[in-house]
């Protein structure tokens, strides 16, 4: 007898997928580029990486880490057209274009460790990316990356990490699998995905030349029209020209997030003059769903002014496996922190607003993941990645 044939014949023939199921599956794909957008856009093809010190304490944006609800702003920062907070940035001198523009970024993702000695958070999946671009086409461009050591998030986390015996590796659940991070850094490498050199590259900064960026308008309205209009956002996000209604709705819900990402990409990667930066910040602050939340400290312990999106809920189900303790709903928001003197971007991060699920033991303001600008500038000598780690 043929058991294979028997099995084949005995499984009932299911109904084909409905049009709605197909549309839903396609919509997920259309969303996929947006999910990896932080890397894609702000990465400009470079590996985006991360890190904060074992001893580095996060002063949370908004500062209020007790109790539930949204962190209360420490002080209201007025970023409307009349606001004076950006006066310094607006007066800052425009830097002349050099030969090479370099960008040094970090990124990291927080994970919760739950040893018997006490729950603490670490930054894992943390890496640093260094890239440079010739000012003109043909001057070349290069992308380097390295993994940074996984480390406890705050001083308090560091104390609990020591109590747990100072483990040098961390096994964590990541989406649909376990990953292990270690406390070791890797060497800089120009090999691998999203790394490498292109001797013929250069001169292209998010689709614009260095000169074009210098000549951008400084008015928030014009900049908003230029970079944050619906059509422009859809184009930048790689959306279909005529998305279905369902997609439209998702797009609108994610809009404040996308706006933040777009401005963060522009400011984090491209050589944009201070006045344009100030204009972009104002443009961002005036978008629906975006709020000025006060002064904050970024994951590298630098002070700045912060804008945040409305928060949104994330529900983790056990659908893809993983520890039960991870399941449940939490709320979070996107936050950007700028250096108010220069308009330079310091960091973009996802910040807990209402603890729950895997972050039930964390407090509002807890940083779920981040990208931070370590440094970025023009230089006349060919840039090389820094040997020293961004934190101790």
């Amino acid at each position, binding site marked *: 007898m043929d058991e294979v*044939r028997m*099995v084949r014949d005995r*499984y009932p023939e*299911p109904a084909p997928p409905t049009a709605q199921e197909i549309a839903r599956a396609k919509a*997920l794909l259309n969303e*996929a580029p947006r999910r990896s957008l932080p890397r894609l856009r702000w990465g400009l093809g470079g590996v985006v990486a991360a890190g904060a010190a074992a001893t580095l304490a996060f002063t949370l944006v908004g500062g209020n880490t007790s109790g539930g609800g949204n962190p209360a702003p420490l002080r209201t920062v007025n970023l409307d057209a009349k606001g004076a907070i950006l006066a310094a940035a607006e007066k800052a001198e425009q830097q002349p274009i050099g030969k090479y523009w370099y960008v040094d970024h970090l990124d990291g993702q927080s994970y919760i460790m739950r040893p018997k000695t006490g729950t603490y958070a670490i930054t894992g999946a943390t890496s640093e990316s260094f890239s440079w671009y010739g000012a003109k086409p043909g001057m070349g461009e290069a992308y380097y990356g390295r993994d940074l050591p996984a480390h406890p998030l705050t001083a308090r986390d560091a104390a609990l990490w020591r109590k747990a015996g100072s483990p040098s590796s961390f096994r964590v659940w990541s989406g649909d699998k376990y990953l292990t991070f270690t406390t070791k850094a890797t060497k800089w490498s120009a090999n691998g995905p999203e790394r490498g050199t292109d001797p013929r590259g250069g001169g292209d900064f998010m689709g614009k030349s260095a000169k074009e960026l210098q000549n951008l308008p400084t008015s928030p309205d014009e900049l908003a029209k230029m970079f944050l209009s619906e059509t422009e956002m859809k184009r930048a996000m790689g959306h279909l020209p005529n998305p279905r209604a369902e997609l439209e709705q998702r797009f609108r819900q994610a809009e404040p997030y996308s706006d933040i990402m777009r401005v963060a990409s522009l400011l984090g990667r491209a050589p944009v003059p201070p006045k344009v930066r100030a204009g972009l910040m104002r443009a961002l602050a005036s978008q629906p769903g975006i709020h000025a939340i006060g002064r904050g400290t970024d994951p590298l312990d630098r002070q700045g002014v912060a804008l945040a999106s409305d928060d949104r809920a994330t529900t983790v189900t056990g659908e893809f496996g993983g520890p039960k303790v991870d399941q449940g709903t939490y709320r979070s928001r996107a936050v950007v922190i700028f250096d108010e003197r220069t308009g330079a971007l310091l960091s973009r991060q996802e910040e807990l607003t209402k603890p729950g699920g895997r972050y039930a033991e964390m407090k509002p303001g807890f940083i779920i993941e981040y990208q931070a600008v370590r440094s970025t500038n023009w230089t006349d000598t060919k840039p090389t990645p820094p040997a020293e780690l961004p934190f101790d």
Partner: protein
Amino acid sequence: MTGDPPPRPAERFDEVFDVYFAEIHRYAAKRLGPDAAADVAAQTFLEAFRQRRRYDPERAHVRTWLYGIATKVVGRHKRAETRALRTRARLGPGRSSEEHTERVDSRVSAEGLRGELAGAIAALPRGQRDVLLLVALADLSHDEVAAALGISYGTVGSRLNRARTTLRKALGGTNPMLTLEEQHG
């Protein structure tokens, strides 16, 4: 399969979706029932989309590659699969679908998978079940199953043999094909 080269995932993912979505959905529906099928199929294509640049046409046909991903996604629903199979097993081969109003039953046609066979498949170790069902439901060759699951050709053969032996024993060594056909005939 036709002689046309398959669409390349890295550049033409829309085509990959259009060509294979219904088929992967069918596979998922057979293994997990219609409710989970839509999710599993969608998740399969989402993962395929994310991995599209890593797809190696030298190693496997796009279709094989997708079945491999789908099987992994189904694996995360392992409990759902064994639950569905066990429910079908409990229904037994002799009762007609009209008697049952449960959702699980409504998805099982008169010729559905019932009784000892469903129970025996549910009891198979996952590796054996994956191989058996990729061969039986997806019509993959041994080579293709090996590529889809990332296991050796020899392992495919031995798992399939063990699965067949288990089924044969579970069904009492009789010819269940005949028995079932008689019942429905």
